[in-house]
């Protein structure tokens, strides 16, 4: 057991605002607690809510970087609370909700609403070549390497960090973001999807789509799942540019 003087005292500054209580102005509230070994921001927030302030709002489900619920801005950069160790941060930690999404309260945002709208807009699901449903038909064979490529892009958990990190998305609210472009790239790869590049161009061949991306690449650098967003957006841009 290390001496108590070695334990860091963390100061957690949280941007508090609840749209349901507009009479209370947005404010930064500071909490203090002792750092523990292997402590993540999720543990910090849980402890704060349990012992200090039950009114503190934030989202989590899986606690393992799989569900994408606990995305928030940590010292200016979007990231997942459950994947962020306090040991990697200074003693002063400022937390804010992910921008560009509808605020539910404090650190909780409605990424689901945004993602659903984006998914519907980009028709981000397999458009089967054969329209007739035949449950007895065997699924088409897919090359394992291609299946790996598709799976790699399917690892996106829709946490919203790429959108919150994107300067373009901050300025232009209709921009589909890296998450949307990644989805289109994913379905372009999928041999089960019957859509051509011309069909995909209808979805992202505009300034709200791939040609709106200014290649700032914060999406690529801050993606908690380390998806190859830089390569995928460039790949999609090349394919869509061929439609010119």
């Amino acid at each position: 057991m290390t001496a108590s003087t070695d334990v860091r005292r963390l100061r957690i500054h949280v941007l508090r605002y609840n749209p349901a209580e507009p009479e209370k102005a947005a404010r930064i509230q500071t909490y203090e607690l002792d750092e523990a070994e292997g402590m993540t921001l999720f543990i910090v927030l849980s402890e704060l809510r349990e012992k200090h302030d039950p009114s503190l709002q934030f989202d989590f489900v899986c606690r393992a970087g799989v569900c994408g619920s606990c995305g928030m801005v940590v010292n200016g950069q979007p990231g997942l609370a459950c994947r962020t160790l306090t040991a990697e941060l200074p003693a002063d930690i400022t937390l804010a909700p992910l921008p560009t999404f509808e605020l539910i309260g404090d650190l909780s945002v409605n990424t689901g609403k945004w993602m659903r709208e984006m998914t519907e807009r980009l028709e981000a699901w397999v458009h089967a070549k054969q329209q007739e449903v035949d449950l007895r038909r065997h699924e088409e064979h897919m090359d394992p390497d291609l299946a790996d490529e598709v799976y790699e892009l399917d690892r996106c958990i829709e946490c919203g960090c790429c959108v919150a990190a994107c300067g373009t998305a901050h300025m232009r609210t209709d921009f589909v973001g890296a998450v949307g472009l990644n989805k289109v790239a994913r379905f372009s790869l999928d041999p089960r999807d019957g859509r051509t590049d011309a069909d995909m161009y209808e979805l992202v061949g505009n300034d709200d789509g791939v040609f709106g991306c200014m290649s700032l690449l914060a999406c690529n650098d801050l993606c908690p799942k380390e998806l190859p967003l830089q390569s995928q957006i460039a790949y999609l841009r090349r394919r869509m540019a061929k439609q010119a």
Partner: protein
Amino acid sequence: MTNTLAGRLAVNASVPVQASRWPARLDLAQSISGLLLALFMWGHMLFVSSILISQDAMWTITKLFEGYFFFGRSYPGIVAVIIALVFGLFILHAGLALRKFPANYRQYALFRHHMRGMKHEDTTLWYWQVMTGFALFFLATAHLWWMLTHPGNIGPFASADRVWGDNFWILYLFLLFAVELHGGIGLYRLAVKWGVFEGDDPAASRRKLRTVKWTITAFLIVLGLATLAAYVKIGMAHEDQRGERYTPAWVEHPEEHAP
């Protein structure tokens, strides 16, 4: 899709309308015009910096562009045509790049706040690309217009007289930093935007690209400053003979070089 122009037209006319191909064409045109301008600027820097080798070297390059070594006499009109083409490309690129500028103060403030909080290099570089691009609207236009209307006034003495005697060194000092920063960031962004030089490890390639970008930018700024200092020095020494044209000692018929 009713959230696109094509979609809205389709709704209004009740006929399917294909999405416009112009966004793709404009994106390509912005990239190609930027690439050509950046490559031109590299060449331009090498040509003007020939003054660091010798006045004869700079004179020779000037006369090469004026067609002297092909036609036996100088035709500054050839230089004017090249400048007009570059000017046209510059205007085209500026117009296309404007599409990406913040459209109002709200967008500008949102981006700046985001950039300051994130401290993300490529995001910050974009801000500087926009700022230097904005500066180039004025700095490059002033330079290009003067060159277009005085294509024969290029040479060791003529350029030095302009730089020092006409106070162009002030313009060129700002222009140097703006163009080298803008061009360097632009070329780097072109590479990552289109996935050029990605290789097997895009992250490592990007790190290398950034290093190369900063190295080239630093080299060109140092070269540009040294070149500017050389013209200032010649201009100061040549102040009393302003208007006189340089002719190398080995040239037998200097009058043939007069524009």
